[in-house]
């Protein structure tokens, strides 16, 4: 069984963001990057499928500038045999469709049995790349999967999707298929030293986006990006710890005496 796990390199959500020079996004300089958290859950799920079936190979891929190889190796360290980077630094994939098109053009020939993605990225939070990739590869798809089981015979995968309020909806997809996973689907393991070393030693091919051919249709254009202005309705308490605690306790007891 061949599994593909798509990962994205994203900045930490606690970052202090600044708008970039073109005013269409955030400035990447000075930010630290890590593997999109939801993609770690996807990688862990792939590792568990491998533990269950045995004859499974896992490939990790990411679209981004050359630095994302660090995140690819990090994900590989959780148990993937192969990794690849699609380098779009010369013409960055501006939206989900562009990224999905690059992934599709690269993955199509490989005929993966299962493609796993995180439900969304921590930065863009659209949840679009996975489903769009499924559509471009003509694969059935289920998003926000909180539990999955490949059925005996490996012809189908039974998924539980998590809806609002924690309600779970079941759907069976024929394989090959693509699923996007929600956090909490599993508990990601710590990378084993052997896997980390193996990932460090493997060559991670970098494919230039231009080699994958075909300018993707752009789906959206960003006219302007700006820092969200504080609504100003929040009163931030001042003073030392003791003073703030005193002020807050007063306000709280005024509302909830007991």
């Amino acid at each position: 069984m061949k599994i593909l796990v798509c990962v994205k390199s994203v900045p930490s959500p606690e970052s202090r963001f600044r708008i970039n020079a073109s005013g269409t996004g955030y400035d990447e300089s000075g930010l630290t990057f890590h593997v999109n958290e939801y993609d770690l859950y996807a990688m862990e799920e792939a590792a568990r499928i491998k533990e269950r079936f045995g004859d499974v190979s896992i490939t990790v891929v990411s679209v981004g500038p050359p630095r994302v190889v660090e995140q690819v190796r990090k994900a590989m360290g959780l148990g993937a045999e192969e990794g690849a980077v699609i380098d779009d630094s010369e013409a960055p994939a501006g939206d989900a469709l562009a990224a999905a098109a690059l992934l599709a053009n690269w993955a199509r020939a490989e005929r993966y049995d299962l493609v796993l993605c995180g439900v969304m990225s921590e930065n863009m939070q659209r949840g679009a790349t996975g489903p769009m990739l499924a559509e471009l590869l003509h694969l059935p798809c289920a998003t926000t999967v909180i539990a999955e089981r490949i059925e005996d015979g490996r012809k189908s995968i039974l998924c539980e999707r998590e809806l609002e309020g924690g309600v779970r909806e079941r759907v069976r997809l024929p394989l090959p298929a693509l699923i996007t996973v929600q956090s909490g689907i599993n508990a990601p393991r710590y990378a084993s030293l052997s896997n980390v070393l193996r990932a460090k030693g493997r060559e991670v091919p970098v494919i230039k986006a231009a080699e994958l051919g075909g300018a993707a249709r752009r789906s959206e254009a960003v006219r302007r990006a700006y820092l969200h202005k504080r609504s100003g309705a929040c009163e931030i308490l001042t003073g030392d710890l003791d003073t703030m605690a005193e002020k807050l306790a007063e306000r709280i007891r005024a509302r909830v005496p007991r």
Partner: protein
Amino acid sequence: MGKEILVVAEHGGGALRPESLEAAACGRELAELTGGSVTGVVLSAPGLPPAGEFAARAGIEVVALTHPELDLYNAEAYLSALAALMNERRPAYVLIPHTATGWDYAARLAVRTGASYLAAVTAIMAGDPPAFTRSICHGKIAMEVMPAEGTAVVTVMPGAFANSMVATKVAPTDEEIGGVERLEAAVDLRGTRARGYVEAKRRALDLGQAEVIVAAGRGVEKPENLGLIRELAACFERGAVGASRPLVDMGWLPLDHQVGQTGQTVAPRLYLACGISGAIQHTAGMKNSELIVAINLDPGAMIFDVARLGVVADLVEFIPALIGKLRR
């Protein structure tokens, strides 16, 4: 391409979800800017009520696409039926609520029909053509986005547009109300099968009963620090401990404590958000609390946007001080 704005409703077994009406309100706003018309779309098995209800409550004409395979949500069924409808009517916009159901098929629909895709929009900006606002990076950055030329599939963030309803009596069946056009849906499942719902486990903890909720987020840093959260909740007769999703994912607290889109929605007298960043998945579940207080080390955290009182401090140091004052 015409000027029609299709609004796809979401329903659970025949009960219309409020996000559908919010999307219709978005559609009406868009129609005013573009001179277009709004048409609702309901996909369901024959005989189920939502089409009539949608027409009556949103005050719009509705196309009811029916097929036996539409009794439960199925991405392939929705995709094939909607793609056929879009091909026929060539709308300017297709609006879909940005719910777990909506985002399951909306992006795919855009690719299948060659339409552009905008996700989770929160506002419309006047212009020719109009632009849309959406947030990224946990709400810290806002963007004005434009769809590419042609039809645009747009998902509408729940809670962003007022659920404005036309005040009419809700009709129990389609037949009792005009404005519903019934069409048989063209459905091609391609092997995907809806398998129903998993029975929900009964909740051991109903946060709706609490007068005060002290909620823990990632800023708590270690499960050991949850003792502080519990102690703070114990300062109130009807206090309870809540949690943001990441803590539940990590197994630090059971699911029963989770507040947010996929957890419980609460509105207590007092909500103390401790070390919670304020991502919309969480705030959607507590923003109607009477008094929201946020304690967070990151002054840029989005929680300070919904909170009325804020403390920028390390909760591990601040909470013991607060407990001391409350106990006096």
